[in-house]
C-alpha cells in the first residue's frame, strides 16, 4: 500500500514540470452548461495524474461551488491553481452576498426558491459538502458585494 503511494507521487512529479492554473467564467442561470467548468477541471486534474479519490473530492466541491454561482448570482469566475502540494480553487461571484455565513454553513439551511429545489438543488447541503470534501475552506462575503469562496485540497499524502 505504502509503495503504491510512493509510485503515485513520483508519477505526479513526472508530469508536473510547472504549476498549472486557469480560470473558467460562469454564467448565472445558465443551467444547460452548469457543471462544464467543474467537468473541465476534473479532466485537467486527471491529465496531471492526480489520484482518483482526490479528483472526486475536488470535482464534487467545485461542482457545488459552481452550482451556487449558477443558481444565486448573475455571473462569476472559477480560478484554479495546482502545485505539487495543493489544489486551490477560488470562486468569485457578483451575487447578492451571504448575510450570515455561519447560518449558510448549517446543513439543511437554504434560501433557494421552490423551482431550484424542483431541479434537485437548494437543499442546504452544498456548502457543507464543500467543507466535507476539502482540507481548507474560506468564505468572504457581505451583502451587496458578492461572495468569494476559496478551498484547498492537499495533494501530498501526510
Amino acid at each position, binding site marked *: 500500500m505504502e509503495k503504491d503511494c510512493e509510485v503515485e507521487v513520483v508519477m505526479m512529479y513526472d508530469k508536473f514540470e510547472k504549476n498549472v492554473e486557469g480560470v473558467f467564467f460562469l454564467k448565472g442561470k445558465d443551467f444547460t452548461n452548469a457543471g462544464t467548468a467543474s467537468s473541465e477541471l476534473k479532466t485537467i486534474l486527471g491529465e496531471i495524474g492526480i489520484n482518483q479519490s482526490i479528483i472526486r473530492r475536488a470535482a*464534487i466541491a467545485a461542482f457545488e461551488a459552481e452550482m451556487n454561482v449558477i443558481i444565486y448570482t448573475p455571473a462569476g469566475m472559477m480560478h484554479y491553481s495546482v502545485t505539487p502540494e495543493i489544489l486551490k480553487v477560488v470562486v468569485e461571484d457578483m451575487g447578492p452576498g451571504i448575510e450570515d455565513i455561519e447560518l449558510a454553513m448549517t446543513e439543511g439551511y437554504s434560501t433557494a426558491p421552490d423551482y431550484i429545489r424542483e431541479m*434537485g438543488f437548494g437543499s442546504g*447541503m452544498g456548502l457543507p459538502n464543500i467543507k466535507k470534501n476539502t482540507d481548507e475552506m474560506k468564505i468572504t462575503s457581505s451583502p451587496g458585494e458578492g461572495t468569494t469562496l476559496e478551498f484547498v485540497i492537499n495533494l501530498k499524502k501526510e
Partner: protein
Amino acid sequence: MMINEIKETLQAETLTGMPYTDFDIKGAYSADLMSDVLAFCNSELLLITALTNAQVIRTAEFADIRVIIFVQGKRPDIDAVALSEEKGILLLATRLPMFEVCGRLYGKGLRS
C-alpha cells in the same frame, strides 16, 4: 446485480447505446436532491431518481456514479443522453414509480 436482471425486474430499457455486460451493481441509492447524491452515492451504487436534467448527469460524473435509472416514465432529453454516453454513464428508464423500484430491488437483495 447485473443490468439485465435490473431491466427484467423493473421492465426497464436502456437509453444509452453503450455495452453494459460488465456493469455489476452492488447497491442502490434513491434521491432527487443532488447534494445528497454527491454526499452519499458512489461508483458501486445505482442511482434511482425522477430528475432528468443535465445536472443529474453532471452529478453522476462527479460522484463517479456509473448507472442511473429514471423512474415514473421520466426521460432525459437527447443532449443529456449524449453527455451521459460521452462520460460513460449508463442510463435506464422505467415507468414504475420510485417506491416500486426501490421495493423490488430491495426484494432482490440490493441495499444502500
